[in-house]
């Protein structure tokens, strides 16, 4: 796999010091980096500092894809592209879980443990269920990734709960709407990624139960 066009050289070359000493002194003693440039014939260290790929690429965090997936979640009527879920990306979901916990913290509820526990158990449950219901299997990372991304509207709900109480009729309607939005997006992405037409409602319902438990934490 190429990282941005760079290739790791197979021969981790070790340039014998004699070669360096044979280069004439050109009076550039204060620019030592020039001697490291790979312009001369085999002067290519195995792990040059400048030749390493950027840190984000190495970690596999691709901001463009994260943004694409976020947009897919936020537009409930936008058709989901099944191939975006091919790469398991847990950076976005981690950020969303932390943001959810942080907004709960702002409302005075210190419940990071609940968030992590429920998301772990919920992901496990959805993983088992989707493996049983789909023709092709699904990996745990994919399930965790999708469920994490679709947690985004729930963050809006908990942000709203900082300022207004959600225990009135308006709160109930808003909560129900947000739960529906989350589970609709999640089921839409699952359906397109696993090719399970006609079973969107069957996938949406367990997602709605899971997000309902998150909403319960936000509301109470």
């Amino acid at each position, binding site marked *: 796999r190429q990282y941005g066009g760079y290739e790791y050289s197979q021969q981790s070359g070790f340039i014998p010091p004699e070669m360096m000493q044979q280069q004439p002194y050109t009076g550039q003693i204060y620019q030592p980096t020039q001697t490291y440039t790979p312009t001369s014939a085999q002067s290519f260290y195995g792990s040059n500092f400048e030749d390493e790929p950027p840190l984000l690429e190495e970690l596999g965090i691709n901001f463009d894809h994260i943004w694409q997936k976020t947009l897919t979640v936020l537009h409930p009527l936008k058709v989901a592209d099944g191939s975006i879920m091919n790469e398991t990306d847990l950076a976005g979901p981690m950020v969303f879980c932390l943001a959810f916990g942080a907004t709960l913290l702002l409302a005075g509820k210190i419940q990071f443990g609940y968030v992590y526990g429920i998301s772990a158990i919920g992901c496990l449950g959805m993983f088992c269920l989707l493996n*049983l*219901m789909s023709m092709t299997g699904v990996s745990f990372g994919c399930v965790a990734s999708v469920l994490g991304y679709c947690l985004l509207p729930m963050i809006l709900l908990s942000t709203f709960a900082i300022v207004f109480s959600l225990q009135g009729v308006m709160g109930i309607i808003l909560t129900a709407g947000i739960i529906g939005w989350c589970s609709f997006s999640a089921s839409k992405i699952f359906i397109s990624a696993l090719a399970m037409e006609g079973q969107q409602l069957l996938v949406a319902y367990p997602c709605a*139960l899971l997000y309902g*438990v998150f909403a319960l934490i936000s509301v109470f």
Partner: protein
Amino acid sequence: GTADWGGFEDNMQGGGSAVIDMENMDDTSGSSFEDMGEMHQRMKEEEEEEAEGEAGAAEEEDGEFLGMKGLRGQLGRQVADQMWQVGKRQASKAFSLYANIDILRPYFDVEPVQVRTRLLESMIPVKMINFPQKIAGELYGPLMLVFTLVAILLHGMKTSDTIIREGTLMGTAIGTCFGYWLGVSSFIYFLAYLCNAQITMVQMLSLLGYGLFGHCITLFVTYNIHFHSLFYIFWLVVGGLSTLRMVAVLVSRTVGHTQRLILCGTLAALHMLFLLYLHFAYHKVVEGILDTLEGPNMPPFQRVARDIPVVSNAVLNTTAKAVALTL
């Protein structure tokens, strides 16, 4: 037959099928007797080799000492290695056979229309009890209904500020609902076995699971509209209908009056009492009822009086009263 030695692997790669074709299993490790026979044969051969080696080495002791020991050690290691391989193969075959989650696959193959139909049918008692009624052996609907019941219980506990002293809210809710579903299903299945009723475990799980639909409706309504007579009406009508349906299906599959009575009486009692328990145990109860029912006994968990938001509750109550009056 013997020609299909690769058949087992082919089935696994085939994908959709959950049926494992036993006759195509790899013959070399299909029976432990054959394996032990193989092992025995190999060990005999190795022992013979060893014996020959020993006889030869007895003549040349000094120079060959290390070599002999090396040879024996190597043989010993090989034997141990063989046994390990055989054991590992057996274990992995057994694991892939029994812990295969694909066994449950056919029970989750449903469509939304089917689920909806079965949900509605679970409230309609059948009339024909002389002919065994068909029970769909499906686990998706019952599983979702149990989880829904857990969610409703959690909601009820949160709105009434129930404090569970020993354990957590989530654990209590999950334990209660799953415990009821699995425990009572197994118990009734056992009774059905004693009473010679024609029902399998999956069918029993499915039947009882769909019977929880009435419980879900009742609790969802009565946890939000706090009216005691309303709860009793729902308990009798909705709970009764779903119980009648389960009872009718079981009666159609059982022969003999005593057996029918035992089986259906037990199921009806457990089902109705569970609904009663769920309502009273996990929800704010009017103080007077508590006192009359429980007397001097302390309830297992504490109920804290909550501040009912005046507007919404009053609105709901007056609406319910108006509806009841017009009926």
